[in-house]
């Protein structure tokens, strides 16, 4: 008789595509092979987890088509099964995983699109917080602007790609113009992903603006963050970045 722990270990392996040698003798066939009964459970685990990945990565799924997506998702599920029952948290490594799938080497943007979708997912479920109001910021003595340290909104995520991933995301939304095309020559895109209120939004940033935001989110002083941005982009003017971040509610608190 299999002890419960041993039975569950073997069952877990079988549900993820492993062999059923230890487990099969413990299953009553009742007109079927034990293996056929176990295949119902392998199906449940595999198909339903692939569907979860499809819910989290709808743009990747559209880009590669359902059949291909399912085959990649199945391999991912087998290699990285969930460790938590909260499945909205499942699949965080899918973007990195796609970067190493030879069959999509021709789609070099795919991994970054997946990372954008993961950032969207994290932002959507992030803890709610009040955005910093412009009026609170307006009370700060301009002399001390350089020393400002911000806490960024908890839903803020930063995603950069060598490809126009926001355009790729846009043309794959429901209701997008079916004739819309994306030219990869549009080049790199750097995005802040934010859900200050209800909807997740993408904010496109310049090269310097992205670097400044990344430094701010790492807790750097505003002036140091600005200088980091300027090192990457000689003509970096922080006005646009600061305007868009403040207006979108990307800051949560500040101190000096």
């Amino acid at each position, binding site marked *: 008789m299999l002890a419960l722990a041993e039975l569950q270990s073997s069952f877990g392996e079988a549900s993820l595509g492993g062999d059923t040698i230890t487990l099969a003798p413990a299953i009553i066939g009742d007109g079927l092979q034990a293996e*056929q009964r176990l295949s119902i459970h392998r199906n449940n685990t595999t198909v339903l987890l692939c569907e979860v990945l499809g819910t989290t990565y709808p743009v990747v799924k559209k880009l590669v088509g359902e059949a291909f997506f399912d085959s990649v998702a199945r391999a991912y599920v087998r290699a990285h099964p969930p460790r938590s029952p909260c499945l909205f948290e499942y699949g965080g490594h899918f973007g990195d995983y796609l970067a190493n799938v030879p069959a999509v080497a021709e789609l070099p943007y795919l991994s970054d699109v997946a990372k954008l979708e993961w950032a969207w997912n994290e932002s959507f479920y992030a803890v709610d917080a009040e955005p910093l109001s412009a009026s609170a910021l307006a009370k700060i003595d301009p002399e001390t602007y350089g020393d400002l340290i911000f806490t960024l909104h908890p839903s803020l995520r930063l995603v950069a790609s060598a490809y126009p991933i926001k355009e790729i995301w846009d043309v794959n939304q429901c209701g997008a113009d079916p004739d819309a095309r994306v030219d990869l020559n549009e080049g790199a895109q750097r995005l802040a992903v934010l859900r200050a209120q209800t909807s997740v939004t993408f904010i496109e940033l310049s090269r310097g603006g992205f670097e400044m935001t990344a430094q701010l989110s790492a807790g750097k002083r505003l002036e140091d963050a600005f200088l980091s941005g300027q090192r990457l982009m000689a003509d970096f003017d922080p006005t646009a970045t600061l305007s868009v971040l403040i207006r979108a509610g990307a800051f949560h608190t500040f101190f000096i």
Partner: protein
Amino acid sequence: MDQMAPTAQSLASPIPSSPLPNRAGIGLKAQHYQEILDTQPNIGWLEVHSENYMCTGGPTLKWLTALRERYPVSLHGVGMSLGSAGPLDQAHIKRLVDLDRRIEPGWVSEHLSWSIADGVYLNDLIALPYTAESLDVFSAHVREMQDALNRQVLIENPSSYLRYEHSVISEPEFLLNVVSQSGCGVLLDVNNVYVSAHNHGFDPVAYLDQIPAHLIGEIHMAGHSQTVIDGRTIRIDDHGSPICGEVWALYEHLIKRTGPKPTLIEWDTNIPALDVLLGEAAKADAIMTLCGQRETHRACIG
């Protein structure tokens, strides 16, 4: 096995009076948030899967909170894996306790099954071997969950596709033993009884009749599908279609004995328009009205 003789009647705590109304409720789906909030349909209560709302923030929690102001809610867990030989996930318990405080549900329920092996969540509700070891493990986990929540929970009978050579008692006997060893109540899923009865060749009526009415805190009703493996039809509990006639007949049989009970219409795949769910709920309400009064059995159709 002496310690496994059913003693539920004597040891179980009776179900407290009406934590949910004795009416039909529906499973809450994101597609229907806005419509339910706008139209406030006359349904008894709503049920959600706890794990979908264990996030720290975001719109889904806001919707549920807004709807909770208008309807009683039942929290139905799918991920605690009470039947796992290993310890319960303490972080998961903590998240459930937080959600319980936030939502103040009528009931918190879980399944008579397991889904975690070696730390991997299989996203499947898998039947246990019905042995003394399983009973000890499962009952201890139910007690741990109830202690953490400081409330009685309901345990639901699963749909099953296989049985084990070393099981020593039937599923309803096992369930009643869990009740007597933990003080939990029963969430009786009529469709699951029907699906398992078909898959394993037992009598669904006899199963239902074994569960004392006073232990049943909630009932589930759902659709299932059929698949053919090697010439043999297996029923799969996929919650993706209307409740079938045989399951409605079993429900009538049950309600005649138990009187009205909070009854959930579960629909989780191929989710239809809200009206379809409300139609199924109205059907359950009508059966409870017709058959649920113990004195008026004769009024019941069929």
